[in-house]
């Protein structure tokens, strides 16, 4: 089956933004986060949404590229599996492992081209795929995915950074990535999704309550729901403006990536 880009029959609104942190600007580093979103329609008229983001490691010389390779690989692999007739509800550990293995190979190939090692392209990954009556998410490293059922009703797919030390995480390229990948398949389509890298996790998650900041997500999803369906550079720019605002800049020096999707 082939997946078509939907016309505006889809009800999803999707905005994404990535912006460099002040510590990156100070060191003349580019934004090392990357995100891709996509909305497709199956021949039988089902809409499937893909939201994928990655945070390239600050210490990796080709982190920016690593984040792109990782995001494109995961998104492409999930979409390919669906095009080959797999259903979202069928995916399991074997698929997740397979996507990770192929992605690690893709990083190795890109690293070899550059005369670098895969660690020079180290990046985390956060992915979510919604449609066909299910929500599939997966994650390696920090950052978080917020899944919402409606106003005031949000949960974090996987709480970030469980380690003892703040400046440590797992990357797609880490030796322990296969053991550290987290994923879940929820048997319904979450109507509100937030995906964000670690630069935003202490701003959008309440660490004392171990919950997303529901009031913040309510405001943003409420706003988004009032806009026409689809995605647009204008909307992405508006989200970039939001996460570049003083509230955000005053509290984090890191790169920030945010994807918001709702219907």
């Amino acid at each position, binding site marked *: 089956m082939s997946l078509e880009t939907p016309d505006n029959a889809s009800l999803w609104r999707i*905005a994404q933004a990535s912006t460099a942190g002040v*510590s990156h600007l100070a060191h003349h580093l580019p934004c090392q986060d990357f995100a891709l979103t996509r909305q497709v329609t199956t021949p039988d008229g089902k809409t499937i949404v893909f939201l994928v983001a990655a*945070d390239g*490691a*600050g*210490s990796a010389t080709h982190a920016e590229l690593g984040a792109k390779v990782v995001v494109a690989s995961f998104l492409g692999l999930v979409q390919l599996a669906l095009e080959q007739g797999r259903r979202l509800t069928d995916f399991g550990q074997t698929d997740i492992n397979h996507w990770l293995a192929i992605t690690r190979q893709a990083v190795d190939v890109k690293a070899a081209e550059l005369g670098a090692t895969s660690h020079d392209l*180290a990046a*985390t990954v956060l992915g979510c795929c919604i449609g066909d009556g299910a929500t599939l998410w997966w994650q390696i*490293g*920090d950052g978080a995915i917020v899944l919402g059922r409606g106003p005031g009703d949000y949960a974090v797919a996987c709480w970030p*950074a469980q*380690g*003892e*030390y*703040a*400046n*440590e*995480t797992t*990357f797609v390229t880490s030796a322990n990535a296969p053991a550290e990948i987290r994923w879940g398949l929820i048997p319904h389509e979450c109507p509100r999704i937030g995906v964000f890298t*670690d630069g935003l996790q*202490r*701003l*959008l*998650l*309440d*660490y*004392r309550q171990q919950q997303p*900041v529901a*009031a*913040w997500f309510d*405001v*943003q999803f409420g*706003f988004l729901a009032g*806009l026409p369906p689809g995605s647009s550079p*204008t*909307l992405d*720019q*508006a*989200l970039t*403006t*939001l996460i570049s*605002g003083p*509230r*955000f800049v005053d*509290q984090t*020096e*890191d790169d920030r990536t945010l994807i918001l999707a709702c219907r």
Partner: protein
Amino acid sequence: MADQTPYLAPVFPDAALAENPSQRCPVVLLLDVSASMAGARISELNQGLQAFKDSLGDDPLAKKRVDLALVTFGAKVEVVHEFSTVDAWNPAPLVAEGNTPMGEGIRKALEILQARKDQYRAAGLTPYYRPWVFLITDGEPTDDWLPAAKLVHTGHTANAFLFFAVGVQDANKDILRQICPPGRDPVNLKGLAYRELFLWLSSSMKSVSRSRPEDKVVLENPAAPGGWAMT
């Protein structure tokens, strides 16, 4: 497009974010204040400490994150200042007197560090940054330092902290080397360049406190020309 209506760019609403406590970056200064430090050494040390506080206080992130304690060893081993952020850090000038109970000083430093980690955990202040223990001495231990050296090595192996030692002038470098974890040799202070040392430490803490996941924080080489160390 036929029917052009003016299009207003969307503006996402401003809304309050989470107010989480800052992630902590614990540092223990472990300083020799034995009698041999009297005179220019203690005076330079005190000035260096002041420069350290001022420099950290100028950095918005380090100010919130660096959690600083001061342990001295001399006439006695003393926690001169409990852990606090830079704002609340105001130890009285140090006075040089007594022996050099370095072993007990190290034990005390590691003990308060462990207690602080437990407090972080109890308060939900995890994760935190890898702690630093920074020892400065101009002499040699007058107590049994071997068990303390073992604690340093064990902690280093367990990744519990980073241990740095600086020897000033007549410091016994052989013993310092045995106290330091393998591969982390002590560094010699150039003259009495305490000020430069503490400015370097401040700059290093700023780098650490803004480091990103799995960053290998690159520290400026203190033995470079103009630096505070000599080889």
